[in-house]
Each structure stands twice: as structure tokens, then as C-alpha cells.
């Protein structure tokens, strides 16, 4: 039995609840890694960030309110950790677009992989506040209210940041702004690719394409 009683006092002495807390932490590691990697745009360092978050979370476990959203609590820690750390070190590293292309491991087709690495790269070109809002809401599936708590801003602010972020991302991907890379396919190609994706996605297009 390892269910935590709902009214656990924040006490360090109950190793039972510590174990349960640890189990919960472990179950959320995949999300921490995803948030760390999306936020930082780097493969290296992202897992370190996620691990530091776990340590911090463990040390501050008495301040976590049982029954509240643990994932959001962890994300808040990770976010703070990221920005304070980046001020220190990551800023010095130059952006490496080749590394960026390998940020995410894909099980999708090559085409989808290329699209994804474009998105990952474009995401890094956004202002911090738009990027994090887009990651939390658009990728992580947080409600605006939850994202607002993590970011520590008003709900309306998150909404407008997500909207602006989406537009900016589209502008970058559509080539209105330059990505830090040279081998993007020409406009027409991208458009055709997208249209053919639609054909695959739209059910009533069925199997027969007429061209």
C-alpha cells in the first residue's frame, strides 16, 4: 500500500509519504525532460536541468501542497532553474543549428522529422515569453490558468502570448523571417507538402486523389 493519505502533513519524518512522493516524481520525469528540452532547445543540458529540478523539488518537498498539481509545481521549479541558469552559462554558447536539428528523436518519417526540427528551431527564435507559453499550452496541454500559474502572470497575458507566439512561429516557418539555416526547401515545396499532408489527414479525401 503506498497511497498517500490526503491530509499528509508536510513532514520529513514520514518515509512512507516520501516514498510516494518519489514515485510521483519519477512518473513525471518524462514531462520534465520534454519541458526542459523544448524550453532550452538543446539536447545536452536538458536532462541536467530536469535532474536539478528533481533535486530542488525533493529538497522543497515540504512546501508542496498535496493534492495540488504536482506537474505544474515541478514545471515552475524547472522554469525558474532554467532562466537563472541560462543567465549564467547557456547564453555564452553560440546557437548551433546542426545540433538543433538533432534535438528531438523521431519515430516519424523523414519528412515529418524535417518539419519537427524546423518547428523546434523556429521555437528558439521566439521571445522567451512567447516560447514558454506556446510550449506549456500548445505542446504540453496545460490550461491557460495552469500555465499562468507556472509563469506567474495573468491568464489573459498567457492567452495573448500563445496567440502571438503562434503567429510568429508561422511567420518564421513560412519564411517571412529567416531561420538560422540554409537548407530549407523552397516555398512551393513546403506548400505542396502541407497540402499533401491535408489529403492524408482529411477523411473524405479517402484514397483517391485527383490531380
Amino acid at each position, binding site marked *: 500500500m503506498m497511497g498517500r493519505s490526503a491530509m499528509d502533513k508536510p513532514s*520529513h519524518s514520514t518515509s512512507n509519504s516520501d516514498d510516494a512522493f*518519489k514515485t510521483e*516524481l*519519477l512518473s513525471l*520525469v*518524462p*514531462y520534465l*525532460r*520534454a*519541458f526542459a*528540452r*523544448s524550453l532550452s532547445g538543446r539536447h545536452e543540458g536538458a*536532462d541536467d536541468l*530536469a*535532474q536539478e529540478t*528533481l*533535486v530542488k523539488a*525533493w*529538497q*522543497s518537498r515540504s512546501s508542496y501542497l498535496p493534492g495540488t498539481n504536482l506537474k505544474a509545481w515541478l514545471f515552475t521549479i524547472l522554469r525558474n532553474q532554467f532562466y537563472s541558469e541560462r543567465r549564467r552559462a547557456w547564453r555564452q554558447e553560440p546557437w548551433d543549428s546542426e545540433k538543433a536539428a538533432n534535438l*528531438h*528523436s*523521431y*519515430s*516519424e518519417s523523414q519528412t*515529418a522529422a524535417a*518539419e*519537427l526540427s*524546423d*518547428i*523546434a528551431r523556429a*521555437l528558439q527564435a521566439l521571445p522567451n515569453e512567447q516560447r514558454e507559453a*506556446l*510550449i506549456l499550452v*500548445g*505542446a*504540453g*496541454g496545460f490550461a491557460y490558468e495552469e500555465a499562468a500559474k507556472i509563469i506567474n502572470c495573468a491568464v489573459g497575458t498567457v492567452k495573448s502570448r500563445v496567440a502571438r507566439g*503562434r503567429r510568429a*512561429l*508561422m511567420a518564421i*516557418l*513560412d519564411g517571412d523571417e529567416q531561420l538560422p539555416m540554409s537548407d530549407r526547401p523552397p516555398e512551393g515545396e513546403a*506548400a505542396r507538402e*502541407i*497540402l499533401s*499532408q*491535408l489529403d492524408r*489527414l482529411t477523411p473524405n479525401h479517402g484514397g483517391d486523389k485527383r490531380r
Partner: protein
Amino acid sequence: MSKDKAPMTDKARYARLRREAIGQGLRRMYDGVVHEPVPDEFMDLLKKIDESTDPERSPS
């Protein structure tokens, strides 16, 4: 080049698709990491975290 009864222009259709594709891309990017197997270091970290729970001992 003729569309029978498409009220949407290619451009509008393209824009909508773009939005959807980007939304999906964002989720796939994130989910791709979520579904990766968790490296052993995380398990190790949580195991040994017991031994050094002293908040004053910060890594340097």
C-alpha cells in the same frame, strides 16, 4: 486547375493547414520526448537522493 465548389481559396486553405500542422508539430515534438525511455540516471538520482537530502549541500 478548376475547383468544383471550394469556397476556400488555396491560400486560406493553406493558412489553416499551416496552423494545424504547426499545432500538431508542437505536440509531436513534446510528446516525442515524453515517450522516450527515461534514462537510468533519473532512477539512480532518486535512489541516492535519500542519502543526501541536506538542502545546504549544494552541488558546485
